[in-house]
């Protein structure tokens, strides 16, 4: 019997090997700029279940419904903004300001700190905006200008009144660590329209939400689909910068590696898929190295555009966040599927104002208002808003009564999120809370419904996107979730 292991090195000829050493990666760099156009929009209709046990690539693939949006931008308001101070106008709170909530509202649910104060009327004025007349508080003057593009959902509920669980729940539809984040599900379901950039990106403003980076994890899905975190300042992406100071030093190395690897693969009879994909990963990684700097280079953006996003804003954090918003648009243009933005750290701790509501919410809103408005305007004028679903919100809302003297505690029983673009009706509000902005009164929307709707707009029937793990076919929406049909354009 021939001993295959000893003669395999001869399978690749000397010429092959040296040729491989000489010309691989240098040429690869050029292809990176082309690749975003290499894949068209292949979304289609199939009404088929999307299951892909063993799948771990980012090749674009059709969903099972007609798609309205190609990408999602999730503006994640970490900490839980107050609905009654932003988009859910409740004038009665002012009337009853200072009174005992148990007497005015009635039964009060358990709160995180159990330090409930009196009814707390919003310190901010509300006005109606646009033709639609949506109510927006003065915390968001610039976003208010886009009122006719917003679909404000006032009837959100969350399952958990505590940050970490609520964060996991909002991101993964499950209150504990370890499930795939929605961006990971989207990548798993649809692949990516750009093979040189990750399909799920988190543009970190500087705060990682409670629960840590696992909010953006791929859980039991292959690691391909996990969120790639871009830092607010350089280095923007982990290990993206070559250790070699000169590009050719790296390409020569990669050429050598690829030559020896190719011989190794051949020696195994080309039978080991894993090894061949590991080899291919080096090409993708190499292309990412050039695609990411190109993405981050704002040289082609006009001054007007940067201004629109608030690059020159004096508000703390606004320029950082504006930069993230512009980056989000550039990613949308390049076909990144799911882009999540987290807030910049401003004077207070996220949107989590257990005390000093006025100061904290002013600061937080000030940091994000212009960037968000700029993003919406810019997407719209470029014709991208139609195919980009923008989602705004936090893990829960806040109580209409005070915590202590001047804060608000967590409130999962009724809060606000909004969507824009991506086939969602603009200029409308959906659902409502009671007259106190405390509990949902009409058209309750839970997080599973939100997920179902996001997936629906991307062309996925949420009931048919499953992954078998731990003996179950698991979905982002678990066994729940209804698409909010009334808000679809």
């Amino acid at each position, binding site marked *: *019997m021939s*001993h*295959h*292991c*000893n003669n395999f*090195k001869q399978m*690749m000829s*000397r010429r092959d*090997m040296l040729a491989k*050493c000489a010309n691989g990666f240098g040429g690869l760099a050029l292809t990176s700029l082309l690749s975003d156009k290499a894949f068209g929009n292949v979304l289609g209709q199939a009404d088929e279940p999307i299951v892909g046990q063993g799948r771990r690539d980012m090749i674009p693939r059709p969903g099972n419904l007609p798609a309205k949006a190609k990408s999602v931008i999730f503006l994640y308001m970490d900490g839980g903004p107050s609905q009654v101070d932003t988009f859910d106008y409740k004038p009665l709170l002012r009337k009853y300001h200072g009174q005992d909530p148990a007497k005015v509202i009635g039964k009060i649910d*358990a709160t995180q700190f*159990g*330090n409930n104060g009196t009814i707390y009327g919003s310190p901010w004025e509300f006005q109606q905006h646009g033709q639609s007349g949506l109510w927006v508080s003065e915390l968001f003057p610039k976003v208010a200008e886009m009122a006719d593009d917003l679909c404000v959902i006032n009837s959100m509920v969350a399952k958990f009144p*505590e*940050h*970490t669980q609520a964060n996991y729940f909002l991101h993964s539809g499950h*209150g504990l*660590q*370890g499930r795939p984040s929605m961006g990971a599900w989207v990548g798993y379901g649809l692949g990516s329209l750009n093979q040189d950039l990750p399909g799920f990106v988190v543009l*970190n403003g500087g705060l*990682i939400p*409670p*629960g*840590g*980076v696992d909010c953006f994890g791929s859980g*039991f899905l*292959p*690691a*391909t689909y996990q969120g*790639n*975190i871009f*830092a607010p300042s350089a*280095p923007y992406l*982990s*290990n*993206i*910068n*070559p*250790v070699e100071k000169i590009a050719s*030093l790296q390409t020569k190395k990669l050429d*050598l*590696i690829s030559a*020896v*690897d190719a011989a190794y693969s051949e020696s*195994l009879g080309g*039978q080991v898929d*894993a*090894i061949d*994909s*590991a*080899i291919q990963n080096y090409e*993708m*990684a*190499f292309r*990412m190295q050039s695609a990411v700097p190109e993405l981050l280079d704002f040289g082609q953006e006009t001054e007007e555009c940067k201004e629109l996003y608030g690059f020159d804003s004096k508000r703390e954090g606004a320029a950082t966040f504006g930069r993230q918003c512009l980056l989000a648009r550039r990613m949308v243009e390049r076909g990144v599927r799911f882009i999540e933005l987290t807030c910049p750290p401003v004077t207070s701790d996220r949107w989590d104002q257990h005390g000093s509501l006025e100061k904290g919410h002013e600061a937080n809103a000030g940091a994000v208002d212009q960037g968000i408005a700029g993003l919406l305007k810019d997407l719209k004028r470029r014709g991208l808003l139609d195919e980009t679903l923008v989602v705004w919100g936090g893990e829960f809302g806040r109580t209409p009564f005070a915590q202590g003297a001047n804060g608000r505690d967590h409130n999962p029983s009724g809060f606000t999120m909004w969507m824009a673009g991506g086939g969602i009706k603009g200029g409308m509000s959906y659902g409502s809370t009671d007259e106190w902005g405390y509990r949902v009164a009409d*058209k*309750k929307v839970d997080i599973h419904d939100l997920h179902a709707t996001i997936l629906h707009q991307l062309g996925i029937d949420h009931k048919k996107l499953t992954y078998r793990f*731990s*003996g*179950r076919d698991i979905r982002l929406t678990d066994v729940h979730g209804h698409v909010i049909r009334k808000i679809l354009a």
Partner: protein
Amino acid sequence: MQFPNHHSIQQKSANAMIPTTWACIVSLSLMGAAWAESGSAELSDDSKAFYHKQVEPILEKYCFSCHSMSDGKGEAHLFLDSWEGILRGGISGPALIAGKAKQSLIIQAVHQESAELSMPPKKRLPDQDIATLETWINEYQAYAPPLAANAKLPEVEKFDLEARRDAHWCWQPVQNHQAPSSPNPQYNTNAIDQWIDAKLREHELTPSPKASKRELVRRVSYDLTGLPPTPSEIDSFLTDDTPEALASLIDRFMSKPAFGEKWAQHWLDLMRYAESYGHEFDFSIHNAWKYRDYLIRAFNQDIPYDQLVREHLMGDIIEQPRIDQASGTNESIIGTAGIWLGDQTHSPVDSKGAEALRIDNKIDVVSKTFQSLTIACAKCHDHKFDAISHADYHALYGIFESTRYGLNPTKSPELLESEVQSILKAQKQLNIDINKLGTHPSPPLDPAKSIPASGPQATELALPTPNDDKGWSTDSLPPRSLVVEANEYLAYDSPQGPKLIQSSAAGIDTRKLGLNHELILRSPTFPVKNRYVHVLIDGTESNAYLVLNGFKLIRDPIYGKLVKKLTTKDNKGLHWVTFDLEGTWMHGKRHQDGIHHAYLEFSDSKVLGPALGGLKTQIHQNLRGHFQIYQVLLTNVRQPPSSPSSFLTEHGTKLNTLYHNRQLPVSSLHHVIANQSTQTDTEWMIGSAEGTGKDSPIFLRGNHHSLGQTVQRRYLEAFVGQTPAELDTNESGRRYLTEQILSPDNSLTYRVITNRLWHHLFGHGIVRTVDNFGVLGDEPSHPELLDHLANQFVRDGMSIKTMIRTIMLTETYQQSSVPMNQDAEAKDPTNQWVHRQNRRRLTAEVIRDSMLELTGTMDATLYGPPVDIHLTPFMSGRGKPAQGTIDGKNRRSIYLSVRRNFMSPFLLSFDRPTPVSTVGRRNMTNVPSQALIMMNDPFVHQLSERFATKLLSHGEIQNNQERLNLAFELALGRPIQPLEEEAYLNYLAGHHGSPQERWTAVAHTIFNLKEFIYIP
């Protein structure tokens, strides 16, 4: 048409339901209630009219679109448009109980008080409609029209546990099969090869030839130690031509401590090992790393598997604890930490819900690890596929709910026992001696100084007596040994010198064992029915906790009220400590029967306080505390009864006189003190402690606020039937559970563990889904072989090393990983018939460890506290740990800290699992971020520099060829091939940096070779 009266319909439906499962019994009993309420009632035309006028429009508007025969939709099998449909109900049971609106599911659903049972989905019924439905049920016997004569409710598939058990392989007993002999004599040396060969022949497959010796030594080295072989290890194996060469190679590698480090990591994956609790602040898990070290020792010492299982499940109550010879510590008790390594929130708003989640996780981990069953899938309903009922889940829930989180002393129990006994003996002798004096050294005790009456509105929680622990427990000795009877004398080693004291009231007094002795005392578990718990207590540097729903990680702001500290600073003397349970954390009504439970825990020095709090774990060894407990009252009265200011009489001065007069032998007092002060310290380790045995009610639809019937603690019905012998209330049931799991008749346990060993040696198991032997898992490719392994394992004394050695010595294991031919690969693309070995990627830890090892820079120190990992700029957030060095102090990866919110990106990228639940089979992904790490990560670069230094500093090397060859020998375990050499020499020639730079670059490319990260 005349509709039949309710009575007859109900009877008919009831007969149609055969109670094969517990769930059906629930349904049946609910129906029983319905008969009682409405059976005799005459149904009037009023009822009909009320239904049609008032009720039907509501159901029509809100319910029928999903729950009616008329619309053809029966979501959750529920049809509300006929009486039969209502009565049969859906998956949650009958929709209503006539006459009992409050208990009716439909009413609970429309009130929308729980997320699990909330209808209609998108809206809420107006209050007046809800009221109408209630009236319908309470006052109109819930009349609904009968099913049309020719109509029939669609069948609901019944859960038939027996049929499922009989139909699925994993429940069938392990068999003894005769291995088929092979025409090829080389396979006839052992049954493993025979079974494999039989399947290969059956599928007309040719096995691969034996791997080369170079490949073998590399494979064996990685599989046993997780490290590459050194060139000298390779050489000595290559030159050993004896038939025993491989066997002795295996023995050499198995005897290295690295064996334990490698195999403990597999076990850590099963136990979702971490050193922090995750969630908002990522607090540390006290001494978690000692559990990791325990595992390393256990695998190195080849502790029999049954002992390992026993220690994990009941190491705290094991008859003969295993003592580590080197340190004298109690190994068995450390094993119980395994199930407590899950995540924890620090202030859950719903403590009962938090407990339910944590117990669910324990059930998941235990059932997957030891049985490869997904019992946690039966949390909300009967298992969708397997022979596991909703009741089974709750039978186990009771066992884990009755198991408490404890800090346990790791000191040898024998030593502890002997120290305690000698103190108690001396105390007894002291009392005898004093009483012998005839005249009491003190005046008669004041009768007013006695325990106050509890009052009519309070329930007393009985304290231990000299003969009865009354359900109380401590970490070690029986609580009765802490009882001090009224007027009993007691000596102790106070900081001011020896003291003799006497109490007028009976109670618990930890001074009996002296201040050196730290201990934890726990009350029995009691249901929370009253607002206040009053404890009459005295002491200092101690803590009293009220542990509500098993929640121990007490921390302000919410749970601060549940811990009371006794300090020297605000020495209160004898006083009442009051726990007020009116708090937000209850999340539900206090009086709701059976939902909330609690127990009291006292620790006798401040030392243990924060540690028990579990979050901050500094130990202050210099604080010595004590406490006395005289009464515990459960009541709704805020004000405790008035109590005396002290029960104590100190005999300090009187004593001197007694000694002086030589009336009292000095030795009898000093004997006590001497024994108290020579007690040795102990370490404290997280783990299990016995609690009051309590059966759990079923959580309907998985909702812990919606309770069904109570299920007796027991193991799975598929194994033990529905009504095995009842467990005593003084035990959690873990001993019983362990017996069930280790029973020779258990069809899973030994298949599961041998399958895991096979998985780690081949890259896939005989059952590929190593954590799931259920219906959704894979079937065994070689069922007879699996049974053979299980039997052999038991016969060999459950030695993990023996089983690994046995497998490694087979032809099957030693095959090449390259297929014999294309044909074999085409016929068996997934290699399920093992026609070759599998080329396996190194795990994350092994990749990192290999780089350290082959550059000669590994710090091979065993054990110890975790080493901080290097945090990248992307890792921030609350609980951020200290920054570690890039090289992790050169320690093996198993010693790197595992903090849930700050996991090593390097290890995660190569598929180290996040610690959530049992992972017996890791993902093996192949993603660009791995390439980016190997290309650009500072760790890889630093190790490349070290590799270059090693290559350049090697004294005997003459030229670049030899240096390249050495690099390949070290990293890949083989000489460089001519073509490779030429490519590398060309590369070196084109690189114009310094020698260190050039060789760093070479080293870097070698780390990036795919061959480097694959086991041949």
